[in-house]
């Protein structure tokens, strides 16, 4: 149960990040969550949005290099130790995380961990077979977020 992440190449110069979100804003694309990775010379912007197809199209039209990356969204308890419990599982199973980021749902006791693995299908199988953690579908993630927004 993978979800699509948009990965965007960012040249390290002022205004690049603003340009991305300007394009997305003007196209009425709503962002669920995002993260950046950067070096001195360039950055990688990672975005989760329900409208990833539209977002990809408009960004490419704006001369950005955009890749689609399958990632896994895992529901974790939003409380002390919530993240460490899933990381302990990865450690025990010898699963290597490429990178991850997370967002909480306000007014709930859950948070969502977005994680990138070399072999996401295998990781999903391992999680399902060895734990009670819930792997979220696109519908779950986007609905989850929506309900958060309504509550807030």
């Amino acid at each position, binding site marked *: 149960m993978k979800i699509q*992440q948009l990965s965007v190449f960012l*040249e390290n110069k002022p205004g*690049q990040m603003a340009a991305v979100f300007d394009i997305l804003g003007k196209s009425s694309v709503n962002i669920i969550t995002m993260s950046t990775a950067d070096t001195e010379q360039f950055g990688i912007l990672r975005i989760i949005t329900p409208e990833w197809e539209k977002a990809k199209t408009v960004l490419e039209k704006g001369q950005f290099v955009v*890749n689609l990356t399958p990632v896994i969204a895992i529901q974790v308890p939003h409380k002390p130790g919530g993240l460490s419990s899933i990381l302990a599982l990865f450690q025990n199973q010898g699963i290597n995380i490429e990178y991850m980021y997370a967002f909480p749902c306000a007014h709930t006791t859950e948070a969502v961990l977005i994680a*990138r693995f070399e072999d996401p299908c295998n990781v999903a199988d391992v999680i399902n077979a060895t734990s009670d953690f819930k792997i979220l579908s696109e519908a779950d993630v986007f609905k989850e977020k929506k309900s958060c927004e309504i509550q807030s």
Partner: protein
Amino acid sequence: MTQLATEQTIWDKNESLPREELQALQAKRLKQAVARVYQNVPFYTANLNALGLTADDINAIDDVRKLPFTVKTDLRDNYPLDLLAVPRDQLARLHASSGTTGKPTFAVFTQEDLDTWSDLCARFLYAGGLRKNQFAHVAFGYGLFTGGFGLHYGIERVGAGVIPAASGNTRRQIALLRDLNTETLICTPSYALNIAEVAREEGLDPATDLPIKFGHFGGEPWTEDMRVAIEAELGITAFNNYGLSEVLGPGVAGECPCRNGMHLQEDHFLFELVDPQTDEPVKPGEIGELIITNLTKQATTLLRYRTRDLCVIHEEPCDCGRTTRRMGRVIGRSDDMMIIRGVNVFPSQIEEALLSVEGTTPHYMIELDRPGNLDQVTVSVEIQPHMFSDKMTEMNMLKRAIDKEIRTITGIGVTLNLVQPQTLARFEGKAKRVIDNRFAPGSMEK
């Protein structure tokens, strides 16, 4: 300087032969050179035969224009030693320059060639103040590169003491110069400025705390502004010299105390200046591509070698008493070769590196700067979807792979700058992929 200008500075009587005698000598040597290669070098035998020429058709200097040009790719095609004009066992030394495809071009010498080379370097060193009771410090690379050894033996020929410091470790070089009270410094012009800068960092005033009086600089293009800066910084008189390994190495031309152009060593080379588009001789005083024919070099004798260097030739007599014509500074190239830290690099080599890593050639741009007087190369590459990964590790691997390939092919390290698509300039005609900021106005300011 004034003292030098009035002093006798001519090393060899051939430097001041009456023009008619010089031209008679050139004609005789040209005929011998053509006969030698026609007989011994299959490449030239075939090329002359194809034009219906034999050595007998070459009797006067102007007959050189009947001969075909030799170009860099001819040297590559005859790699490694197919252009030898002597048996292999006659070779006394083999140098090489960086090639355009990773393959070097050999510069080879018989013992007689080495003697000539030493003499030709001695000519400009002596003209530029070196005397046998002095020391000269060579901060050129010593390996396959012709610069270090050429100057080294030139200094020995003058009879001065040579310090073969080679390149690198500038602080140690400064200590050596000071401790030995060395009069002459030999290196690239940019390294001379680097020495001055490092000396300042050490709390020294390079103009007064370094003992050097004379500098002989070459191996890369430089400007009169740079000469003014070097002379002021180091408190020396700076001389320009010119050479290329294909026909010899350093010693092809060098300045006299008048410093109004580099005296061409016309007794050992025949020089022409042609329009690179039409291949016709340019009018006196006009810029053209320098074409060099080896008259005396035994190991390899190149006919009408296209240097791709653009310059003017001054014909009016020089006050120093030499009768040879003088070439002005190299002001450009008729191809797109760059000289980076003394290494010859073509944009096509960068392209080749990108192609071999990426499978396609992305849009790219090369920018040359000289911060701290050392050449720095930035290669900007437009990223394409197939090159991009969401993983930083893969992006870093891509950068390292391109870096490594460029270093392997060109021998130089670059700063790689990945940029977004459509951000680099596009060209309708011939692409201008090099931005050289090294000689821009203001680039010499401290």
